[in-house]
């Protein structure tokens, strides 16, 4: 028996939002009489965190504490049209629509505060803690709550906003494929260390080390959720999953979570991510969207690591123990590649 360690890497980019545009998102925001805000959307939270991303973008734009904003999604009677949660479009498209809506609501809020403080609205700033004051004169202040009450019960103003974000649909040339596909791209590089058993073809992912450039990170804890969960899914796609294990032969499809193979909680590899932020010129606060791409580099990085470990190229996913074992036999044994680097430097 022999186990062989190998190391592989891959680098990728990923387009943010629906290819070619034409995918509008709308948002509505309104305030209660005491300055607490509701964002009404028809966006979908699949677990990726749409509600919280929307909440933080709305709170930042409004200039109020995040606790003073709740996101209500999705009800087609109250939330205006949105294309949906796919194509890494949620943060980028809906985030921008929310900014538009929140800017409008903020404009009314500041106008109302200006009227109460008898100053010019252009001179007002928010402190993000529920107060509005004159720039450079913190003592000349009014709370968001008092402003909202005055706006609605005294001034007759609706502190509300509506927003849409649309990248207009663009065409594709039939003969050259020329097009305007996307406006923002995220980037990643991932290194996988694996151990391959040359008698059984089994692969253990020892650790993974990656760097992701995601534009502005709206919420680092949620980015971590996506990247860690996505890396697990990447291992799963690379080594385990398919509903057609003998594709294109359609037989032997799995019928349950026992037959559909995915890594269990005992198969987790230690993982270190470094996040870089190069803001997207048209993203909300420069945000892009990490949700989809985070599995992608794992697949080739593991394939390349397996090759480095035992000299077998598995070009058909998933990289099952059977395919590796067949490859080792076809090669007449293990052919290990060059060592690459030393112990990890996760410090």
């Amino acid at each position, binding site marked *: 028996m022999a186990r062989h360690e190998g190391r592989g890497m891959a680098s990728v980019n990923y387009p943010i939002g629906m290819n070619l545009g034409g995918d509008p998102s709308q948002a509505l925001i309104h305030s209660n009489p005491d300055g607490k805000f509701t964002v009404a959307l028809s966006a979908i939270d699949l677990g*990726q965190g749409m509600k919280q991303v929307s909440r933080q973008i709305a709170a930042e734009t409004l200039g109020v504490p995040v606790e003073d904003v709740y996101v209500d999604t999705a009800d087609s009677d109250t939330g205006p049209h949105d294309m949906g949660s796919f194509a890494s479009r949620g943060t980028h498209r809906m985030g921008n629509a929310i900014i538009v809506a929140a800017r409008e609501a903020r404009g009314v809020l500041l106008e109302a505060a200006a009227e109460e403080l008898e100053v010019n609205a252009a001179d007002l700033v928010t402190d993000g803690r529920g107060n509005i004051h004159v720039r450079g004169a913190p003592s000349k202040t009014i709370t968001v709550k008092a402003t909202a009450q005055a706006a609605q019960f005294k001034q007759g103003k609706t502190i509300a906003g509506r927003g849409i974000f649309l990248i207009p649909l663009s065409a594709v040339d039939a003969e050259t494929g020329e097009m305007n596909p996307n406006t923002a791209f995220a980037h990643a590089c991932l290194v996988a260390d694996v151990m391959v058993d040359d008698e059984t073809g089994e692969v253990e992912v020892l650790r993974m080390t990656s760097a992701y450039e995601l534009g502005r990170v709206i919420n680092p804890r949620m980015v971590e959720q996506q990247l*860690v969960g996505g890396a*697990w899914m990447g291992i799963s796609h690379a080594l385990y999953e398919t509903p057609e294990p003998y594709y294109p032969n359609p037989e032997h499809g799995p019928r*349950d979570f026992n037959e559909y193979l*995915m890594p*269990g*909680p005992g198969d987790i590899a230690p*993982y270190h991510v470094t996040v870089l932020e190069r803001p997207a010129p048209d993203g909300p606060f420069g945000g892009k969207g990490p949700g989809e791409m985070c599995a992608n580099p794992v697949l080739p990085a593991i394939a390349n690591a397996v090759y480095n470990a035992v000299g077998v190229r598995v070009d058909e996913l998933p990289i099952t123990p059977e395919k590796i074992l067949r490859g080792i036999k076809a090669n007449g044994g293990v052919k290990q590649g060059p060592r690459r680097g030393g112990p990890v430097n996760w410090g």
Partner: protein
Amino acid sequence: MAKLPVQFRLNGSDRATFVDPSSNLLDTLRRGLGDFAPKYGCGQGTCGVCTVLVDGEPQLSCLTLAVTCEGKQIETASGMADGPNLQPLQEAFMDHFAAQCGFCTPGMLTAARALLARNPNPTRDEVVEAISGNICRCTGYEPIIAAILTAASAPGARRA
């Protein structure tokens, strides 16, 4: 086919309802009694999202005949919090961001609760074993394992 009465304690309250003889506990809790904490994920015993405690032991409610629960103590994730006060296990799940879509969370919490009741100081391997019947498709398990280990070391964790 006549419906059969069934009565048990659900999260500390006596509850009774009528079921088809072949009804499973999952449907009985959800549609008969309105406790939506246990979820339908497979009906096969392969995903764990319907996990409940029956007399303190973890059981898959989708594979449990409702009539066999007569007189038993059933506990679900909706009964975990003490009023508005969260259990350390729930707080640890929050602190570790151990849920994304949240669909597996009630079953995970229930599986973890069964573990900590029996073994207040589990090793990582024991935590992994305890949730091995519960599928999570979002998190990669890591934050869930970390949350359970944190809860185990928290003061008052034994309550969980």
